[in-house]
Each structure stands twice: as C-alpha cells, then as structure tokens.
C-alpha cells in the first residue's frame, strides 16, 4: 500500500537569540490511508511542532533545516506558499489546533468564521458555501442555526464540533488533531472521540492524533509514536505499546506507569523524576539517560538510533540493541 504522507529525516529548529532549539530532530515515518498515528510525549517534546511542520507552517522562529515531507509523492517543503494554500493545506491536510475552541474569534459568528476558511481555500458561490457549511454542521451533530451564533453562546463541546466541521469541509485526506479534547470534560471528551471515529469511517480519513494522554491515545490510535526531546524514541502498534508484553523503551514504560488508572488500585504513584533536557544543548548520549532508571555506561556516551526490534516495532534504546 502507498503511504499518504511520508516524512523523511525531518529537522526543524527554532532559531532563538540563545541558539537553535532542536525541536524536531531527524524524524521519519509514514502515514497509511485510513490509519491513525498517535503522537505522545510530555510538553515540549516537539509533538505540536511536528504537526505544524507537516502542514508547512512552522511557527516562527522555526525553520526547516533538513529532510522531506512527501504528500502524494511530492515534497512540499520547497513548494511555493501559493501552491501549498491551493493544493495542500486544507485540501489534503487540515488541522484542529490545540485549544481550538478558544481560537475562535469572539466578535464574529460561527458561520462567518467558517465562511472565511472557505473563501480562503476554495472558489465557491455564497449559496454553495452556505449549504456546504450546513451539511458539515449536520455531520458533527450541530443544528444549522449555529451559524448565526457567537462563540460565547456555545459550550466547549459545541465549539470543538464546529472547529472539526471547519477542518473537514474541503475533504482533506489527513487531519492533524492537536489535543482536540484536552480542555473538555471527560464525558464531552468521550462524545467528541466517538464523533471523530464516526467521521473517520464516513469520510475515509487518516488522523495524526497529538496528545499527552496515553490513556486517550490507546482508544484512538492504530500506531503510537512516542516522542522525547525532539526525537522518536518508540514507534509501535497499539497492541505492542498497550498490550500484555508492554512497551520496549523505558520512557514509554515510565510514562505509562505515571498514567493514573481508574480500575487498578495502586498503592504507590509512579513518576519520572527530573525534567526534559534543554534542546539548545541536549545531553551527550541518549537524551533520556539522565532520567532513565535503566541507563548504563553506553547510554551516557553514545546516542542510540531508532531500530526495528520486532516486525513493525521500533525503539531507540541500547537495551534492545547489541553490538
């Protein structure tokens, strides 16, 4: 099967006055049609940066330093902005931003803001646009009257539904979802997740699901990509990460142990001591070694690369590599 999206050795740095922050450091993966890849990690690990980098809009002062992003076999990094707008962004890949419900402008109606997106990316008469918006509001379970409402009149869940509809109506193949439920209550979160699963089937979408919540990721993603300090440390199927055998990388293992479980009574709470490294001058050797409970001599000297440890399962850890 041909991949929809192929990221090859992507490097994106933020050029600050203190030096280059290596937010995305040599990342490669492929997204298959109909698949959901989950991106997990602590804040600052580069998961949101990767999302915006794929959409060809790294947040300033971020710049591409190396690598390629293939969408339908074409590298989008050297593409002129005009072409990206016309053919890629929202047509092929769209994004639901983090805290999307708060990035709606309070002074315009929902309909106005959805219309703006259509005007920007598609040539369409007003009447057509109007009916298209109504159609998509229906898909996300909102009545057409919503178009005349202002954001403050809607609940968080309703705003998030409107933002999801906006991400879908130019029929993209890939949707990047950046913490789409983080600010929502647990019941509304479950309702939105159900909606996303339904829409994925209905429109044959592929998702990149970004979250810090490993428990939520288990419920949505076919494959899980664990990031730490700008790098992928483990990549495996849902079963390989959450199944009986457990994850391979000590970081994933400890993140999972730090995730509170509702139905498992544990006496001691687990956590990972320390903080993620400074990405201007990352530590020598494995970037997780200063916080790792399984680190040994080699970990502090040499950086492990991401290698396949079983079919479809990759990890960047010396524990799984000999020689």
């Amino acid at each position, binding site marked *: 099967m041909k991949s929809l999206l192929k990221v090859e050795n992507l490097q994106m740095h933020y050029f600050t006055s203190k030096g280059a922050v290596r937010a995305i450091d040599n990342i490669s993966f492929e997204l298959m049609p109909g698949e*959901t890849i989950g991106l997990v990690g*602590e*804040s600052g690990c580069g998961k949101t940066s990767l999302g915006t980098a794929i959409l060809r809009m790294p947040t300033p002062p971020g710049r591409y330093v190396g690598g390629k992003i293939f969408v339908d076999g074409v590298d989008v990094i050297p593409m002129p902005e005009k072409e990206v707008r016309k053919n890629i962004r929202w047509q092929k890949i769209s994004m639901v931003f983090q805290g999307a419900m708060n990035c709606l402008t309070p002074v315009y109606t929902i309909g106005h803001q959805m219309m703006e997106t259509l005007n920007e990316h598609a040539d369409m008469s007003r009447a057509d646009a109007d009916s298209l918006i109504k159609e998509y509001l229906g898909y996300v379970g909102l009545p057409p009257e919503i178009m005349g409402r202002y954001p403050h009149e809607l*609940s*968080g*869940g*309703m705003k998030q539904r409107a933002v999801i509809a906006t991400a879908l109506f130019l029929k993209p193949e890939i949707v990047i979802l950046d913490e789409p439920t983080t600010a929502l*209550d*647990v*019941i*509304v*979160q*479950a*309702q939105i*997740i*159900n909606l996303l*699963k*339904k829409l994925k089937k209905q429109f044959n979408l592929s998702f990149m699901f970004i979250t*810090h*919540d*490993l*428990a*939520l*990721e*288990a*419920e*949505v*993603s*076919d494959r899980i990509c664990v990031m730490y300090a700008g790098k992928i440390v483990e990549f495996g199927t*849902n*079963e390989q*990460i*959450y*199944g009986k055998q457990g994850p391979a990388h000590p970081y994933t293992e*400890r*993140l*999972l142990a*730090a*995730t*509170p*479980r*509702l*139905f498992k*009574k*544990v006496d*001691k*709470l*687990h*956590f*990972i*001591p320390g*903080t993620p490294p400074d990405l201007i001058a990352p530590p020598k050797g494995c970037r997780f070694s200063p916080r790792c409970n399984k680190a040994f001599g080699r970990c502090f000297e040499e950086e492990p690369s991401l290698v396949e440890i079983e079919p479809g399962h990759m990890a960047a850890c010396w524990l799984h590599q000999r020689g």
Partner: protein
Amino acid sequence: MADIILSIKNLKKYFEPHQSFAQSIVGGGQKKLIKAVDDISFDIRRGEIFGLIGESGSGKTTTGKLVMKLIEPTSGQMVFNGEDVTRLDKEKLKQYRRKVQMIFQDPYASMNPRFKIKDVLEEPLIIHKVKATIEERTKMIVKALEEVKLTPAEEYMGRWPHMLSGGQRQRVATARTLILNPLMLVADEPVSMIDLSTRAEILYMMKEVQKELGLTYLYITHDLSTARYFTDRIAVMYLGRIVEIGRADDIIDNPLHPYTQALIEAVPEPESGKVNIIKELPIYGEIPSPANIPRGCRFHTRCPYATDACKTEPEPALMLDGEEHYHACSRAYEIKADRSARQKTGSDPNSP
C-alpha cells in the same frame, strides 16, 4: 463517631444574572437566578482527603470558594472545628484563613514573578503579622521548603519563580500554605496544569505532607482517576447538587447514580484493543445551564433510564446504601440490576 472538622449544611449560592441598565429600568422579564450551589450538605473528617468531583458547571469550584470564604453563601451553615463560620467579621475571617489555606490551579499565575521564593514564602507571615525574628522566619521558611522536599532549601530560597518548573512551583505553593500551620487545605485542580510525568509526583508529595502533618484536604477535580489514588472519600456533584457520596473505592467500583456511572465509563484506560470501538455512553447531551435546572430529578434530561416519575416527582434526597455510601437516584437498584443483566448476556457494548 468520626471527628468532623468541617460540616456543611444546606449550603446554597445563587448568583443574580447581570442585567443591563435598560432592563433594570423597565424591569422587563423575570430574573433567573443562577443556582451554582443548590442545597448541599457534607462533613469532612479530620485527617481525611475529601474529593469533590464534577464537570465544569457542576458547582465544585463555587463550593471550594465558599469553603475558602472567598464568597458569601446565599443560605446554609458552615461549621469549622466546632465554630460557626457562616458569617465572619474581618478579624475572624483572617483567623479562619490562617487555618484553611488554598493551593491554586495555575502555578504560573499564583506567584508574584518579582518575588524570590523566600519572599513568596515570607509573605503569609507578614500578612498574618506573625511575630518572629528574622532568624526564626528563615527557620520557618527552610522547614516549609524541606517539608515539600525542595532541598537544599537555602538554594531554592534565592531563586525566582521563572527558574522553577511547574512541579517545583506547585511545591512552593504547597510550602506557602504550610508555613502558617493550617488545619485544612483546599486544592482546586492542583495538578491539571502540570506535565503528566510529574503529576503523580506532586500528588505523592501532597499525600506525604498530609500524612506527616495530619492535615485535611478538600481536593476539587474533574479527574476521577487521580481522585481514586488520592482521596479517601468522594462527593460527585451535578448541577449544584451532590448526587453521590461515599468511600472512593465504593464510588468507583460500585457507582449507584447513573451520572457517576456515565462519568466512570467515559474515562479512557490505557489498554489495547479499543481503537475501533465506539463507546456507548449511558448519558445524553451536555450539562444544562444552572439558570435553568430541570424539574424533578435534575439529571433526568440526560439520563437514559429516566421514567415519567423522574420528571414529575420531587427530587430524590440522598439515600443511604451500605455503610456510608449515599446516592440520590430513586431507581438505583433497578438500574443496577438492568446493567448487570446486560453485562452477563454480553450485550453491553463496553464489555469485550
């Protein structure tokens, strides 16, 4: 009889909605009161961690503010440590606040960025006019920092808040409350803004401090999974009312109110094999406005088990089940029987 530190009886807080000037002249339309807290009663025992759980709009934060006495109740009574604290004058209020301290949600906003950590911790001593020499104060600050495991304390005292991580800041926030030797701490979502890898670390630290010093906590959160770790007892709030209250394990293993059941089923679990399953949630829609509380049982508009009686009969009060497990659902046993029957036949979509 358990030793009760805080007793809350029939507490209500109604807010008047904002009226425009024109409305107030014409007097047009009747005012709809926002019933944020609508008649709640509970006791917190000395030395326990009491969890208050609910969605946004359930009134849990308003309850926390009432307990902190940041707002005045509309009616009801609060007794703290044997003393009626429902209405307090300025002097008494200051004394009360010394005994009941608060840890805020956002550790980035709750500290003056121009204060060194030493100043942050010294401020409560100044506000409460604690008589002590400079050496004694420094000793108190060092002790508070050591209690929250920020060591060496001398080194942290000279730092600025921006030099600390979210977790370290929340430790400082805890130390700041401890310096006045309080009896009770109110913590409103103390870990929701902290990175997941350190969340457990903060809860663990708070629990250690609580055990060591024999403190009482009121822990307000929307997160059931941390509540199970952290709390002894849980009260579940819905639209300003407590719908279920009991020991944390009983509430989570044997929820009796359909709202609690829905809350529990909505929590994701980090296990494989659930990617293609659409969760069937035993609840409809979203929480109504507290200005428009449904008649009858206030949960009936979202309850999949509601009958006509639930809509028309007066709202059920809390009923006792077992030792100390209370719920406010008149059909709790029928619903429970129905659910376990469905689970047995395997028609329950949530059972694998």
